[in-house]
């Protein structure tokens, strides 16, 4: 056996050096080159993501810096009056009084369902935005009563008139006043700061009209 190995060694010893070089080459290929290739791929993908992040952040910064500040606080106050972040009973009451003044009617009854009640008949809006239901009894002339219903829809906080019964001098109204909680979830690297679109600017004007 030993002689046989010796014979093979004698016969193939000249191939030993190329074979060793080949083994080292394979080692270098799998242990140095391949890991570097996968690392390069990963880094390229990370670079792409970072480029997107930078672009988004630059856009955000640009939007923030160029956003007009003069009406920011008043607009913010208006939109939070239009859609409060909590059940704001006082502003609802003031809104009703304001609408009654505008329509020239008198409120003879006002009740608010403050607790969350199970309601089978939720309108489309109520399915997505929570609301407080109010019942109103109102005295006034026929046209004033209709006008009052219209004013309720235009008043702040924003509301949806669900049911209305009118007779010659009295009217009863069921109305939902909307609110929606707000949580500050701004994340500099993920959030997108938007400029106010035309539709949003129109909405500001519309709710400002309701505030007057």
């Amino acid at each position: 056996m030993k002689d046989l190995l010796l014979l093979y060694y004698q016969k193939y010893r000249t191939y030993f050096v190329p074979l060793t070089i080949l083994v080292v080459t394979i080692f270098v290929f799998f242990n140095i080159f391949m890991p570097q290739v996968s690392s390069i791929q990963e880094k390229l993908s990370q670079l792409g993501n970072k480029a997107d992040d930078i672009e988004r952040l630059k856009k955000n910064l640009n939007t923030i810096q160029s956003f007009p500040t003069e009406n920011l606080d008043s607009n913010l106050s208006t939109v939070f009056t239009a859609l409060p972040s909590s059940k704001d009973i006082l502003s609802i009451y003031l809104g009703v009084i304001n609408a009654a003044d505008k329509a020239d009617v008198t409120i003879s009854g006002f009740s608010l369902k403050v607790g969350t009640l199970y309601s089978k008949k939720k309108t489309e809006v109520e399915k997505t935005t929570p609301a407080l239901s109010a019942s109103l009894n109102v005295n006034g002339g026929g046209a004033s009563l209709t006008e009052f219903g219209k004013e309720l829809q235009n008043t702040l906080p924003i509301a949806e008139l669900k049911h209305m019964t009118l007779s010659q001098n009295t009217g009863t109204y069921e109305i939902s006043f909307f609110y929606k909680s707000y949580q500050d979830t701004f994340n500099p690297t993920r959030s997108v700061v938007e400029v106010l679109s035309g539709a949003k600017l129109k909405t500001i004007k519309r709710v400002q009209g309701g505030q007057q």
Partner: protein
Amino acid sequence: MRQEINLVLQKQGVKKEIRKAFVWSVGVFIAVFAISIISIIVSAILSLQLKNRENEINNIVGQIRQEAEKTNKIMALNERLGSINSVFTQRIDIIDEFLWILSQSPANLGFRTAEVSNESISFSIESDDLVSINTLLDRIYNLEKTSAKVKKADVLSFSKAGEDGNIYALQLKFQIL
């Protein structure tokens, strides 16, 4: 003599083969080593670029954080306006529907009682003007046939009212879409 020549030639052939194998193995090794070095350099360059971009991100985030108060206000304004817009687009304006139905009746007919919801509108009319009532009924009949807003229109009752019997009372109900 011939055998010796053959042996020498065979030995030379083997040597040539070994040299060829050596050259090939060294060549492949150099190639693999070279691309490995290149990949290490590329990887290092990419790491540097990554670090630079991260620094750039931190720099911009720092600038945004300096404007945190304004940013929060803008975010809040956008969120509220989005929610308000969604309420405006989803809610049904029953007053408009009611006024539109009323606009179909002749000018001298005013409603006496009305009940309006997002599914139906019913109202009653009292008048001594039978012609106007008839005009209204005609229009309602057309509305039911032609209007996309009205699903169904019903005359609930038509009666004579009042002490002298000259007042006519009409009760109508519209199912709206």
